[in-house]
């Protein structure tokens, strides 16, 4: 499902212009990370993809639908949005009901719905929690349930708003596993994140926003290597990219495997 944005502008009712003329497109099955300083317009931009916000001017299209002409409820069949704060999203009495709620609303028939709920809970590692009340779970697991409840809708586009915030290393690994599963299923995944290391290790394209505009947009390796430009939007390159730059490695590296290989190559020279 292609997403196309043409000269998007958005001004909040209080007069703050949060998105100031963005044009870009995201191809079906792409894995895109959106980075940028607090207040750079990341969340405002992606809330246009599922119709939570409507352009002040410009056009946002999801597939062949213009988001100004389609209801949020209808868009929900194409775009799933996992909020930064799971407590904005959870309301059912059990995890099972919570995860089944979205597919039921979309009219998915019972048998397929049950399969989706079971598979999705397995994917996020919450299959033993089906009968628990979401609010008896820790914040970590509430976040995973919120993620499952969106994945169960089997939308073509999945938006993850700050998925790794406040999560420990094991949970970040689990979220990375979910992203890689979605890649195998040809889903479009769009994440907003400050976790540049997570972004470098799991996403192929990075869009950096600054003051409501696109500062950089391209393959991850080329974007994360541009330290001086990223600094304009308070983004620092991933840890191992910075280390490679400081050591004068010739190639930009974005993960441990690339770092060790490039280091070994340079030492052998």
């Amino acid at each position, binding site marked *: 499902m292609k997403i196309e944005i043409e000269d998007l502008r958005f001004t*909040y009712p*209080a007069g*703050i212009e949060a998105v100031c003329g963005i044009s870009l497109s995201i191809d079906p099955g792409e894995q895109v990370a959106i980075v*940028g*300083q*607090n*207040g750079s317009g990341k*969340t405002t931009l992606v809330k246009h993809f599922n119709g939570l916000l409507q352009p002040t001017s410009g056009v946002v299209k999801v597939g062949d639908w213009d988001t100004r002409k389609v209801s949020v409820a209808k868009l929900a069949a194409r775009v799933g949005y996992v909020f*930064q*704060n799971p*407590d904005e999203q959870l309301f059912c009495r059990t995890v099972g009901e919570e995860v089944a709620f979205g597919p039921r609303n979309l009219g998915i028939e019972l048998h397929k719905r049950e399969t989706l709920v079971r598979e999705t809970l397995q994917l996020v590692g919450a299959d033993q929690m089906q009968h628990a009340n979401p609010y008896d779970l*820790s*914040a*970590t697991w509430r976040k995973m349930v919120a993620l499952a409840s969106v994945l169960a809708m089997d939308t073509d586009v999945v938006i993850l708003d*700050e998925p790794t*915030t*406040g*999560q*420990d*290393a*094991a*949970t970040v690994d689990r979220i990375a596993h979910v992203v890689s599963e979605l890649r195998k299923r040809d889903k479009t995944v769009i994440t907003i994140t*400050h976790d*540049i*290391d997570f972004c470098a290790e799991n996403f192929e394209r990075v869009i950096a926003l600054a003051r409501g505009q696109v500062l950089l947009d391209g393959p991850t390796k080329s974007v994360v290597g541009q330290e001086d430009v990223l600094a304009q*939007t*308070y*983004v*620092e390159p*991933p*840890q*191992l990219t*910075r*280390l490679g730059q*400081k*050591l004068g490695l010739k190639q930009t590296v974005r993960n*441990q495997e690339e*770092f*060790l290989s490039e*280091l*070994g190559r*340079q*030492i052998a020279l």
Partner: protein
Amino acid sequence: MAVVNLKQVNYKYPLTDTAALSGVDLEVNEGEFVAIVGPNGAGKSTLCYALAGFVPHFFKGELEGTVEVAGVETKSSTLSQWVLNVGLAFQNPFNQISGAKYTVYEEIAFGLENLGVPREEMRARVDQALAVTGIGDLADRSPYSLSGGQQQRVALTSILVMQPKVLVLDEPTSQMDPVGTREVFGVIRSLAERGMTVIMAEHKVEWVARYADRVVALFGGRILMDGKPAEVLTSEQLLGRGFGISRYTTAARAAANLGLWPESRPLPVTLDEAVAGFGTQLSRRKRGEG
């Protein structure tokens, strides 16, 4: 001198069987900056709540042992007295912002209003706190119109304005960009140097290594390690237990197995340490010594 003193603290939340804290002994000196690290569910937030008096005054449950701040025990104090000594910034700023105020300025003054601080003093303290955390430009905005990272700064400022002896922070930069994170760690470091005691639960270990005096590693409600940041954060005891490990540490550990990290050198946690270690290796090989 120890301003915070926990002795054999055991705690279970109501209606639960598993202890959230077990046998926790912790002394923190005045002006010390202590970071608490651990996987989710290790007890970091519960420890913050115990220090801030929310355990046992808000969360009931079973509390054994003693939690003392400035010589006063939490069980013999009330929450309204306790907050004069200890300020807590919650992990999630949405839980902290009162919802009763229209502007950031009023939100930050809210705690002082409740204490009946004279108007002029209140203005001076709010202005000073806004300057310390660098959010003066947000003063007239609604707290709810801000991004997550900006809200976290507001939540932190609303605690700093109370001038507590002990500042307890539960992942105060989780939603901030790197520049915001660096600034907040810098502010907290300078507050500690001026005598404020800081206890911070945090996953960002590279920042912890650069700024904290000491690291306490919690696992399963118990203290697993307590020591200098570089020792604790590179310890093999943390492996396989869900602790955050710096990518520099992990890369150097893997490099050591390939002969690409100097044998006798301690593992790095920060960028500078990694550059120094790998840099030595690169130059030795170039000189043909490796």
